[in-house]
């Protein structure tokens, strides 16, 4: 069995997962009392109006047809019309034909913002946590390791908003270096954007670094117990050389896995952090839509989050297969 077919198999499995997840999301939303038309028009709507909207949106068709319509739309990037925007559009005299209330138009810029936040976080967190993790493995059971252990355990255990408010207190209120609100808009220069993004990114970094550092440390210590490391040490190599030349190449697989898994973890963290800093990302949109029950937006955000999560996990799997020959032989 070639390596290509294994990877293709994984990709197929990922697609299948995505498909099933979309079914779950679609079915969950269909468990709502009443339907889109009722929710759109409110309690006082006449039955005729509800029926008209229902026919207009195609809600009178069987659920299977509706699901595939929604899925086909989502695949093209068309997630339907947002309730809140549709109502607003009706007020200012817009029709639903125009692009005004579409979920996609709302989602796209915010998606880009969230990706920006995640990239800044990853750019800080990955090198820092790998360095600390390797140092902690190198000097394990030393004072440095103990301090790193206790402080990472503390930051893993703290809720994201606690870390966020501590950072706001230190860097925005007591020493006004960074802005505590990330009001990002179009046409900002990169430096400005970076400045506004830095505090939320630092918050996420603290949370993710703790996980990544602990996993890196565990992966390297695990390797240090293997015989060829013992051999390298008995040859009289320096501890630094043992780690960098002998342990690290073999630790690459678990470390790549750790990085990918933690980026997937970012997806959950991003929601709370975006709300704290009023960062105009997809997480904030999601929470706002949950509060006003704007179902099409909730559905779309959920799908985007789930897709990113599955994709990153898939990436972790494939990287692990590529970097570890033992995984290429199916048991």
């Amino acid at each position, binding site marked *: 069995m070639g390596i290509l077919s294994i990877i293709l198999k994984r990709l197929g499995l990922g697609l299948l997962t995505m498909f099933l*997840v979309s079914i779950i999301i679609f079915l969950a939303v269909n468990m709502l009392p009443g339907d889109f038309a009722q929710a759109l028009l409110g309690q006082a709507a006449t039955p005729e109006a509800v029926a008209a909207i229902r026919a207009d949106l195609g809600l009178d068709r069987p659920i299977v047809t509706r699901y595939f319509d929604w899925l086909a739309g989502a695949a093209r990037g068309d997630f339907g019309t947002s309730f809140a925007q549709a109502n607003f559009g009706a007020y200012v005299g817009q029709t639903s034909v125009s692009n005004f209330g579409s979920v996609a138009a709302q989602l796209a810029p915010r998606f880009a913002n969230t990706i920006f936040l995640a990239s800044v976080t990853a750019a800080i967190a990955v090198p820092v946590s790998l360095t600390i993790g390797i140092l902690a493995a190198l000097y394990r059971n030393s004072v440095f390791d103990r301090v790193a252990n206790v402080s990472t355990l503390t930051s893993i255990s703290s809720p994201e908003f606690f870390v966020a408010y501590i950072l706001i207190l230190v860097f925005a209120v007591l020493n006004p270096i960074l802005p505590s609100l990330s009001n990002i808009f179009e046409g900002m220069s990169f430096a400005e954007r970076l400045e506004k993004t830095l505090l939320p990114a630092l918050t996420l970094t603290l949370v993710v670094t703790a996980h990544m550092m602990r996993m890196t440390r565990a992966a390297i210590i695990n390797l240090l117990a293997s015989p060829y490391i013992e051999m390298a040490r008995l040859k009289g190599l320096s501890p630094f050389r043992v780690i960098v030349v002998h342990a690290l190449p073999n630790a690459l697989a678990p470390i790549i896995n750790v990085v990918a898994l933690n980026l997937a973890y970012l997806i959950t963290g991003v929601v709370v952090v975006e709300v704290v800093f009023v960062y105009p990302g997809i997480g904030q949109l999601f929470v706002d839509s949950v509060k006003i029950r704007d179902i099409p937006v909730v559905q779309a955000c959920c799908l985007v989050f789930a897709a990113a999560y599955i994709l990153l996990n898939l990436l972790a799997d494939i990287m692990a297969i590529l970097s570890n020959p033992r995984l290429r032989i199916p048991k």
Partner: protein
Amino acid sequence: MISISGVMWLGGIVFASLALRPLGRALPIARLKAACDRMSLAGAFGYVIAAVALYQMFWLYFVKELIFFQWLLQGITGLGIAGYLFRFVGRHIGTDASRKLFRQMPVTAALGILIIIGYAITSVFADWLAPYGQAEIFNNVNVLPGGDPNLGGNPAHPLGTDQIGRDLLSRLIFGAQNTVGIAFVTTCLAFLIGTFFGFLAAAVGGWFDQFLSRVVDMMMSIPQLIFALLLMTIASAWAGSERWLLTVYMIIIIAVLDSTRVFRLSRAVGMNIVVMDFFEAAKLRGEKMSYLVFHEILPNAYAPLLAEFGLRFCFVFLTIASLSFLGVGIQPPLADWGTMVKDLAQFINFAVFSPLTAALPLMAAGAIALLTVAVNFVVDWMLHRASGLKE
């Protein structure tokens, strides 16, 4: 300005770590000389960094007199001493077994146990400990904390009141009951569901096991907080204006979502047990499935499940706090820490003028963090002990 002083600091640190070893060797102290000979450059760097950090802490505490830093340091020192004393007491009082347990315990684990006991007492006796009821509304709105009438405080409300006049100290104490209590109930429920189906899947096997495992895989492929938020949207539509019903729905939703992780573990543990001879014998005796699960598998899966319970509790607790913080979790009038952080968060901007007011949201958030840290300390120690015994 910041960058220039930063470069100067960095240069100073590098220079000091380069100079540390020759300096140590030059001094006429034999032990210091030997230590410097053994020290690597990285080690010297570490010592210098530690010295700079200590100096900075000293400066912040005594020269700049930063009140938040003073509180932080006093808090950590106080907790450390409390943990140490608790361990000391535990080592000299109690049965032989408990004394032996305390003798092997690190201070962090002792502190963790002490904090958990403290939270448990607070949540059980909240009605007696809190000065007022959690939903009791007073005429004095927005009383500042501190209890000093000249500064807008009121001795009757040591931590002040919120924007509709509820006593914040009482709400903080009742938060222990609601937030911790609800998280505990949810974790128990998740464990009931997860272990039951996990052991059943292990014991029955075949298509039943395959079916359950695939369903769980499916549920785990959506990030948990996202899935919870999606389901809470639907639950809030079902609950309508009945706020308390939403809290019940939240318990069920999080319990079911979290039971998937418990299912995975208990199935894996169960799988190792069902291949044992004693289980085979019980099966051949013709025992019922309920007997097999509760009398054969459960007693042997006790230890790993207990550690998992601690970790699960932390996750559930943080999820509930996050949901409440986002405004879709535990609903008012119940007092809870996540909602308190959300409501009080704006006060953080007053840190320069009134540190105690700014500390209010941090107290609620810190209460959440402290408990999870404590549980993690204990679980860390338990896992370490379990792995240490194996090696």
